[in-house]
């Protein structure tokens, strides 16, 4: 079990660290792999015509990155991700790193089911600018039999 996951279970909260910024080349690659070719995600002119400063990261890409972070944290732990409920709170622009924080908000049946809220935020350039919420995922982790 990862140290991060042990801490999450023990202290009911853990800092999942930072996900590096997604760049335009990554957005092209994701569009190709996922089949989501909405140009708002890679064409600066289209993004501007929609009133945005620059292209935004696909919501499903962001969600995939958070999902992967939880999967990596739970690696080696006797839990499997059974369900996820996610809300998109704000846009993530390319070039913006996300800070992830995990919190256990419910435990059931002697920890056979553990619910974790994983939130992602873009931090402001300095302490005077509040961080901006991007995406919140609620994971239902179910214990699986160990060999």
């Amino acid at each position, binding site marked *: 079990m990862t140290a991060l996951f042990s801490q999450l279970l023990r202290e009911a909260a853990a800092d999942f660290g930072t996900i590096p910024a997604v760049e335009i080349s990554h957005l092209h690659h994701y569009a190709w792999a996922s089949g989501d070719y909405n140009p708002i995600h890679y064409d600066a002119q289209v993004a501007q015509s929609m009133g945005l400063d620059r292209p935004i990261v696909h919501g*499903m890409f962001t969600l995939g990155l958070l999902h992967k972070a939880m999967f990596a944290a739970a690696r080696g732990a006797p839990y499997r991700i059974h369900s996820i409920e996610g809300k998109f709170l704000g846009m993530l622009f390319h070039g913006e790193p996300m800070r992830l924080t995990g919190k256990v908000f419910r435990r059931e049946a002697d920890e056979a089911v553990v619910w974790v809220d994983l939130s992602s935020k873009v931090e402001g350039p300095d302490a005077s600018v509040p961080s901006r919420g991007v995406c919140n995922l609620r994971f239902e982790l179910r214990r699986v039999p160990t060999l």
Partner: protein
Amino acid sequence: MARLESLTADLVGRRYPEFKFEITEGWLRDYKEALFFSPEEVADASFVPQSFIACLRDAEFHVFEALGISLSQLLHAAQKYEFVRDLRVSDHIVCRATLSSLKKKEGRAGAMAFLEITNEFYRELPSGGEELCIRTGMTVVVRQPAGVSP
């Protein structure tokens, strides 16, 4: 572009044509590379990330097309997943989409419709049957096309 008036309550419960997918090694590799998985995970053909399901969206896109909704009218508000069984490489998957909820609201930015599309992904079995692997729910906000007064 769909006007919100065309999105009526009788659409709730409507089922849309099924879409079929084969999970190929190449497709998986592309997805894992795009999501920055490690070289070992990318090379491991037996490793199918749960989030790969985000690539199997033709059924959802078809619903938008059938309703005349343009991507530029849409905001992705929420997403749900239930992972009943893990996907495997070489699986043949059938996806069936249903329009499961439709609510209209008057917001500060004008009228909006909240649509939920439920997708069920089944694995086709060699015996001819199928088994449910993943259920997803996608909630989108549909805005009135520009130039249409509320």
